[in-house]
């Protein structure tokens, strides 16, 4: 079942075309990674799909709802963890989670149950009463993802979720993300090839605002005649440059 479909999606900033006629389909329950170097248009794509910014042209449908004409309906379906850690620093972890529950008009009972479940899932129990601004980078990222998930979104957007994290924190977060697969449709942006390879069901490779290739890791390797994913990525990107 199709969860996201973009049709000739374009975003222009003055003379720069950040996303150029993007046509993409993402299916229910899959983890789809947008992979590309800095400036490829990954974050701009996420910003359009999450209704933060309006497309200059084209449209996208999130669970059948247009991001141009029905942004309020789209916002009810999604959870977003932005690239930078987006937590309220002077609020405790619990209060940060309560904030999102309140914004989604959850009852007290539902809020309590959600916080209990997510703090267990993301091992946040020990830091629930600590100020979010005082936590380590890894914990802040976990809180950020838990905040994105607490509204039980059908679609979760993770923009560079492990950026700036050390190896251990990164692998721990990968485990958390893997545990979500199948239940929630996840769109993840990354410029780490090993991250895309380790987590994704399918990968879309972007460069200069264009989607150059999509497929599973095996499909991308096969189509480029390479034996490892890094070579496949380089081959796609170099071919796209020609």
């Amino acid at each position, binding site marked *: 079942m199709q969860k996201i479909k973009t049709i000739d999606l374009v975003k222009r900033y003055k003379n720069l075309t950040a996303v150029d006629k993007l046509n993409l389909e993402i299916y229910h329950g899959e983890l789809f990674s947008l992979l590309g170097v800095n400036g490829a248009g990954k974050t701009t794509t996420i910003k359009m799909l999450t209704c933060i910014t309006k497309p200059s042209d084209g449209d996208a449908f999130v669970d059948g709802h247009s991001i141009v004409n029905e942004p309020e309906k789209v916002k009810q379906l999604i959870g977003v963890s*932005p690239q930078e850690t987006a937590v309220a620093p*002077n609020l405790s972890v619990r209060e940060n989670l309560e904030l999102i529950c309140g*914004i*989604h008009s959850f009852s007290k009972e539902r809020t309590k149950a959600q916080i209990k479940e997510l703090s267990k899932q993301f091992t946040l129990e020990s830091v629930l009463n600590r100020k979010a601004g005082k936590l380590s980078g890894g914990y802040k990222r976990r809180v950020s993802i838990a905040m994105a998930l607490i509204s039980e979104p059908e679609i979760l957007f993770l923009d560079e979720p492990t950026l700036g994290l050390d190896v251990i924190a990164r692998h721990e977060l990968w485990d958390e993300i893997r545990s979500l697969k199948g239940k929630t449709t996840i769109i993840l942006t990354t410029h780490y090839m090993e991250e895309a390879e380790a987590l994704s069901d399918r990968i879309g490779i972007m460069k200069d605002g264009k989607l150059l290739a999509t497929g599973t890791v095996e499909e991308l390797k096969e189509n480029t005649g390479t034996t490892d994913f890094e070579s496949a990525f380089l081959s796609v990107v170099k071919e796209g440059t020609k």
Partner: protein
Amino acid sequence: MRMLTFAKRNLKEILRDPINLIFGLGFPLILLLLLSAIQANIPVNLFEIDTLTPGITVFGLSFITLFSATLVAKDRESALLQRLYTTPLTGFDFILGYMLPLLPVAVGQTVVCYLFAIPLGLTVSINIFYAIIGIVPMVIFNIALGLLCGSILGVKQVGSICGALLTNLSAWLSGVWFDLKLVEGFLEELAGVLPFVHAVETEKALFSGNYELAFGHILPILLYSVFITVASVFFFLRQMKKQ
């Protein structure tokens, strides 16, 4: 409900920042104490507690602008707003959510200033209550100005513009520290155009029971409040769209 949840978060962010408490509450009280001590040794009409306190309450509001602007600018820079823009919160929820929690904080600051001045010799009468009510339009002006600055400036710029420029404007062009007639000419005329001196005169007039005089001074403040509120809503929504 959504807006109140957001407003509650903003109130917590403001009250949990020790710098806010030190500047917002501590500084005006220290000034009251210090200037009263000077007045005790070198009597100056301007620093008599009944004249000084209404002026200090208005000066203290410039810190409310700083809090409001810093909170909005920090949220914009930290990507928290970006996250919240993807939730069902509307532009109206954001604007009210930022403005509402500062209203009790600012009025509370005024109440504390008047209460603190009582042991220093402030005349106690019902007029204190009227002066507290009368400061509300200036409170709205200061909060809206903060929202406006936070929508167009970064955290560092907010510190310079609201922290330094505005507090100085509010201090020097309000007639709290010296009689503006002493700087007759351009500065006196400029002070008359800006709302600060009118706010101080409104407070003084209400405190002394001269309601007619207060009415004359409150009108320009109301006009400024409406204008700055409309401008702040416009610029906040504009930066929201720009995201």
